[in-house]
């Protein structure tokens, strides 16, 4: 591995990249934008907007021509690893293939250029799409009432906990605590605080399940909600979920379902049937909205009848031409409501008990278009297959890692069948081979594979959370298992290689501590 331990020669693509910022490229007088001609009288600006309200100096934006902008961002893109380039088993993030069709349909002018304040009569297609998506999500979750408004998972969580608050207040109850397991994703506790509740942590038992006794003890009358992820962030399904629901409901609290792991159970079982009152979906995970390097996403919520009155405003509703909102929820076949006049779609703002808006307009509609297209493509059988293959791939990869002897140094956190993802612990590897989970992750980069989620969940030492997703081939899983084994062998011979990794990337390990100590978060111009 001699080349890895020295400065690597750059590829022809890297060599083309001068690594400047767009501001570095700026040169006074250059331009990409040409304004449309001024077609109204050219009045002196001072007459329109007094000087003291105006900027003394133009903002120092870059001055560059179109070719330079295109090359700049094209080169930047080549410093990113992406899903269309290789395997991306980032646990808890469901990095499944993003169908190209979705970008095409989302770009149709009828969707892309529709103004959010267009009157409902002139936005029937958009409202119908949202209504159909609500319906499908209600069916998938087993909770009939859906709001698409939240902008991402954590926004959905916030909505969900605020719904709980409204529900209890409506009953004249003032509850102060929310429970989450110690395996919970960071957004859960953060949401609890942001919604004005006190967090109480529940332990995890020897099998990786919620410690039901601990839950029983902590489920008191002042508890408003239990937030749960099922399968959990350990990739394990809670076998005692029914008992958990009984306990939580027993004290009058609500049961909240973090939908980030929904990809494991679509068409197999439903949160609503498990007793959950509120669910959020991550459309950018289970329903394949591209992640965009950190968004956009969407975090719709589905709720039970008792929570429904409090859903955010406005709600998309289907009305029989003329009538008020109808709750009837049989699944409509495509184009059915096209029968002119029979139905119409509307925004219902008249919701006296609603918690109100969480954001502007009707949510991330462009994301809804993609997720609706995905549901149309797969249908009921396809959605079930997604979850079956997601779970099959995860268990197969775990089995292959075992075959390759990887688990000797990277034992699985809980010895049982997993769902769509599983957790390994790098603790023995650290002791025996002298490389940390972080080192293994960085070494994977040199091999053109994106590392799994690392150091989460927190309760597993040196954790690696691996989620292959259903869209990967068996060949890819086999290669990954072999690759991990090779890296462990390499570490057994010379741990320095992994400790110094990566070598094949545009930059090597970055000094994050220094970045936080003296933050440089903008360029001085």
């Amino acid at each position, binding site marked *: 591995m001699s080349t890895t331990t020295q400065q690597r020669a750059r590829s022809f693509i890297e060599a083309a990249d001068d690594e400047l910022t767009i501001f570095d490229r700026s040169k006074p007088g250059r331009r990409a934008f040409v304004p449309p001609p001024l077609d109204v009288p050219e009045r002196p600006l001072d007459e329109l907007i007094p000087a003291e309200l105006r900027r003394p100096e133009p903002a120092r934006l870059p001055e560059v021509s179109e070719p330079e902008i295109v090359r700049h961002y094209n080169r930047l893109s080549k410093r990113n690893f992406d899903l*269309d380039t290789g395997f991306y088993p980032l646990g808890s993030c469901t990095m499944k293939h993003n169908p190209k069709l979705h970008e095409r349909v989302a770009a149709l002018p009828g969707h892309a250029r529709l103004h959010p304040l267009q009157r409902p009569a002139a936005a029937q297609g958009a409202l119908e799409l949202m209504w159909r998506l609500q319906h499908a999500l209600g069916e998938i979750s087993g909770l009939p009432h859906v709001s698409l408004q939240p902008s991402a998972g954590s926004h959905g969580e916030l909505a969900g906990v605020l719904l709980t608050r409204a529900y209890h207040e409506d009953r004249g109850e003032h509850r102060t605590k929310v429970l989450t397991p110690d395996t919970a994703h960071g957004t859960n506790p953060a949401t609890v605080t942001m919604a004005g509740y006190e967090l109480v942590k529940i332990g995890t038992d020897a099998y990786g399940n919620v410690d039901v006794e601990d839950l029983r003890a902590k489920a008191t009358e002042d508890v408003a909600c239990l937030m749960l992820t099922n399968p959990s962030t350990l990739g394990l399904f809670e076998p005692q979920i029914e008992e958990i629901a009984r306990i939580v409901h027993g004290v009058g609290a609500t049961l909240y379902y973090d939908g980030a792991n929904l990809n494991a159970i679509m068409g197999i079982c439903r949160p609503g049937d498990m007793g959950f009152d509120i669910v959020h979906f991550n459309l950018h995970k289970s329903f394949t909205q591209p992640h965009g390097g950190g968004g956009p996403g969407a975090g719709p919520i589905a709720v039970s009848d008792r929570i429904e009155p409090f859903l955010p405003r406005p709600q998309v509703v289907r009305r029989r031409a003329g009538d008020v909102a109808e709750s009837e929820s049989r699944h409509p076949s495509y184009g059915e409501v096209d029968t002119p006049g029979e139905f119409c779609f509307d925004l219902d703002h008249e919701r006296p008990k609603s918690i109100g808006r969480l954001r502007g307009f009707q949510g991330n509609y462009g994301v809804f278009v993609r997720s609706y297209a995905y549901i149309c493509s797969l249908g009921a059988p396809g959605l079930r297959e997604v979850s079956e293959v997601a779970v099959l791939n995860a*268990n197969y990869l775990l089995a292959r890692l075992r075959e390759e002897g990887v688990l000797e140094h990277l034992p699985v956190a809980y010895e049982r069948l997993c769902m769509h993802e599983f957790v390994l612990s790098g603790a023995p590897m650290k002791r025996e081979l002298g490389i940390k989970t972080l080192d293994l992750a960085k070494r994977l980069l040199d091999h053109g594979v*994106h590392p799994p989620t690392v150091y989460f969940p927190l309760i597993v030492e040196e954790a690696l959370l691996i989620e292959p997703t259903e869209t990967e081939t068996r060949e890819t899983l086999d290669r990954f298992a072999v690759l991990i084994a090779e890296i462990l062998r390499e570490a057994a011979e010379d741990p320095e290689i992994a400790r110094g990794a990566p070598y094949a990337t545009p930059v090597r390990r970055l000094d994050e501590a220094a970045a936080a100590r003296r933050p440089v978060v903008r360029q001085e111009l």
Partner: protein
Amino acid sequence: MTRYTSVTDDDLHEMLATIGVASVDELFADVPSALRLEGPLALEDGLSEQEVYGELQRLASRNVSAEDEVTFLGAGMYDTYVPALVDAIITRSEFLTPYTPYQPEVSQGGLQAMFEYQTAISELTGLPVSNASVYEGPSAVAAAGYVAKLHNGRRRFVVSAGVHPHAIEALTTLARGWEMEVEVVALVDGATDLSGVELGEDVSAVIVAQPNFLGAVERLDPLVQAAHDAAALVICSADPISLGLLQAPGAQGVDIVVGEGQTLGNRLDFGGPSFGFFAVTDELVRRLPGRIAGQTHDLDGRLGYVLTLQTREQHIRREKATSNICTAQALNALAGIVYLSWLGRRGMVELAELLARRTAYARERLSSIPGVTAAHSRPVLREFALRFDGDLDAVIAHCMAAGVNPGYRFADDQLLVAITERRTRTQIDSLAELIEEALA
């Protein structure tokens, strides 16, 4: 097999054998049988790609978009022209498909773009620190309120009625969780008037908009003065294109500047996804929500970028985090910096001036119609409110019939008319004529 999965029958059998189970069902052994679905979900079967395209096209055709009518709708989102290079860049899979950059060594492209974006937002807002994006405009106002709460722990927000109603409502929704009050102060001749309000110890922040909901350009300094006198923070929700021409709020002492980023290279998309921008003073950095890209060096001393100041965030601080935000709007913010690079230093000013001139022309032209008056006399830049004596229903109906959407009716007798670089003088004149006909 779906077209997105690859498990052949051979694969299936060999994979099950490797796992050591007899069937896929066995893999779900942990799911209590009572919970297993008997039949399939009550959804249709899957469709071929061309059928799905047909269905989405059918729905698109049932919308009247800005492609189908001349629209003067605005009120927070605007029918702006998105240059083709923005699409060309944000549709590159290297930007479109990665996750949040948790592995900086293979995410330098996205991280540098965030750093460039932050620099541009800092320039526009006049504040030293911008994050890498939040969800969108109105929720950004609510998020800013949370920063104020964390900062001074006071119990009341004083909000100008000029702030977007969706923003006021989003703040109110969240404030309930914080047990805080939201007091709305009315506008006088289109401008925020604090004279009536007593700004006491309990005021956490004064929240205003620039330009405000009625399109009026506000005079910020007196508001900042009053608020700071009460040791309250000032939060301003600003229109980014207007900032091409207007004094940077940060330069006037505003503590937090947020806003809706749609006009920066993002489509209307019936309201989203777009992005919210969020910038603060140095004092507030450690309470800033969301991702922040920072510059640093690698082992070899090479310049690079990472997500920084993460000790604010949920994945590190959990219940002590300054926000619960995780996935934000990175791709939309990328469109933002690409768009701003396309506009450029002079272009930004040229565009804002074009809007200011067309908007002034439109307000004069329309308010000169008998029965139509300008809702206020403040300067306007991209939008303005009109009051109608006559029958506004008739006016709207008449315009619609002619394929013109006259604007957003936000009150029985009031209309908000938005002007963009796409709305020509000819279109403005024909709107005027339509209104004249309707009122005649």
